[in-house]
């Protein structure tokens, strides 16, 4: 079983395909990515171009034909923005932040985790103690305080998200790497003049990768949710480039008066995105769990 048998990635894909829900979720994620990527070509309106907005179109219900001469299928927001366009652009902003935060967290966390696993002794102890301490602290608080400290902006927000999340990657990488490290062949490889980098990149990293991928999917989804939460609390991005969270937040005050669509549609988009990513991650985790594969 533990032989280097057929490519593990192929095997993963074969087993992934079997679950229809997960496969559908993957397709949904793909479609959303395409929609976000091509938003400028699909969206009927450029929501960032304030000169193209008319207040006469503000807070109109879905199906309203605006002054632009086209139908606002999902209605308009308080500035008279076409909500469909705003959502398509907002998806892009949310995804960008999620992926950036996930990727940077992955690199930093993995580096720390592998370093700790590779250099045993006090270095490992101190590093992992810090990581554990941080893991027990709720990420949302950390992100809140950091956003307040760093100020508003995309880079600052990503930095706050990374700081709140990197520890999960570090824990996972550390676990996988130290399990791998104690195996005989790594001991043997260390005794030969093979460079450490080679051992890490050829042996340790590939073995830690599947678990890290699962954490990465979950963390991207979490980063998107966290960003929208921060934006909702008024601590996220500047208003000029509204993410989904910001769109929702902007609509809240009109919700009580029955103009639900301003908040609800961006919210639905957000949920579909996060649920789809989590479904994919969840199924991959099930496949990779060796304890259920007897």
């Amino acid at each position: 079983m533990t032989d280097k048998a057929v490519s593990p990635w192929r095997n993963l894909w074969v087993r992934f395909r079997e679950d229809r829900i997960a496969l559908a979720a993957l397709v949904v994620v793909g479609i959303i990515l395409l929609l976000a990527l091509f938003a400028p070509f699909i969206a009927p309106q450029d929501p960032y171009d304030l000169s193209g907005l008319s207040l006469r179109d503000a807070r109109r219900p879905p199906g309203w034909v605006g002054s632009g001469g086209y139908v606002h299928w999902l209605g308009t927001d308080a500035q008279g923005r076409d909500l469909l366009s705003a959502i398509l652009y907002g998806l892009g902003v949310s995804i960008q932040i999620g992926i950036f935060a996930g990727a940077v967290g992955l690199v930093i966390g993995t580096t720390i985790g592998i370093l700790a696993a590779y250099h045993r002794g006090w270095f490992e102890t101190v590093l992992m103690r810090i990581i554990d301490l941080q893991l027990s602290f709720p990420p949302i608080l950390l992100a809140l305080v950091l956003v307040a400290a760093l100020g508003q902006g995309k880079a600052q927000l990503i930095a706050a998200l990374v700081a709140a999340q990197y520890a999960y990657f570090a824990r996972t990488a550390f676990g996988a790497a130290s399990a791998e490290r104690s195996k005989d062949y790594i001991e043997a490889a260390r005794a030969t003049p093979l460079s450490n980098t080679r051992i890490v990149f050829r042996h340790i990293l590939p073995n830690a990768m599947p678990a890290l991928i699962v954490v990465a999917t979950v963390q991207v989804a979490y980063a998107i949710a966290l960003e929208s939460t921060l934006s909702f609390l008024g601590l996220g991005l500047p208003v000029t480039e509204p993410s989904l969270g910001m769109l929702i937040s902007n609509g809240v005050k009109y919700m009580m008066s029955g103009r639900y669509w301003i908040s609800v549609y961006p919210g639905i988009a957000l949920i579909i995105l996060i649920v789809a990513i989590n479904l994919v991650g969840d199924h991959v985790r099930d496949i990779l769990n060796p304890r259920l594969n007897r």
Partner: protein
Amino acid sequence: MSSFLLKRLLQGVVIMAAMSVIVFAGVYAIGNPLDVLIPPEATQDVRERTIARFGLDKSLVEQYFLFISNLLKGDLGLSYIYNEPVLSLIGNRLPATLELVLTAVLGATLIGVPLGIYAGYKPHGFAARAIMAISILGFSVPTFWVGLILILTFAVSLGWLPSGGRGETVEFLGIEWSVLTLNGWSHLVLPAINLALFKLAIMVRLARAGTREVMLSDTVKFARAAGLSEMTILSRHVLKLISIPIVTVFGLELASTLAFAVVTETIFSWPGVGKLIIDSIKNLDRPVMVAYLILTAGLFVTINLCVDIAYALLDPRLRRGRAE
């Protein structure tokens, strides 16, 4: 056992000391409190007096030790915004938060664990799949969004429940409680559900994963071979075996729910500490931020300690041995 506890207690003190330094230095880096404290039209004289009153003329290290020595005396300083002692500011709001958090986490556990056990017992059945789908939803959908939908549905559309506030409270042991009045409950229900949903998802997953593993174990096979009914196996063997990770997570979640209450309290205008901390972050009210963060860290350490004790009580293998 007692030496083990002592060791953990010591660890907690060290962690708290470290946290206080980090939090203090971290919050110190945020903005310039003078902009908050002193109106631009104030005279030089007023400026200097205010600076001196809040000890802002001293160095960071001096301020820190002043803060610590005051802290040990039970004084957490004055809020910049409310001009009130931070301790009473937080103390007045903490019961509301604790009430909300405890209701949410207890509810999530009492409902989530049985659902999770069932889903783990029959992992391929329809009900199990439905439970898992709901749990993924609870796991994925941001708390603030669920809160909005709850308000939209139950307060705005149906008009069944109030959309915010704490309702009538009754004093018990010197603290005001909403759980003791019907009206209080009607106010508590929505925010508690809102806060509980994410925890419910976690509990379901945890119980399901644990049950799936235990069901495959020889312990269960042996119990079945002895003729135990499935109900007895689940309620006596499985529940006891999976209770250890569940208690751990219960503790951790209790602590992190305190943090998450920030969002729910904002949406439902629940007069707890969460709302206070958001306002203090927005207004750069340093003393409140520092006190809140240190308090949260303190709660974390305490809860972790309790979890360790519960661990030792639940797992007989640890009662001795772990003492070292």
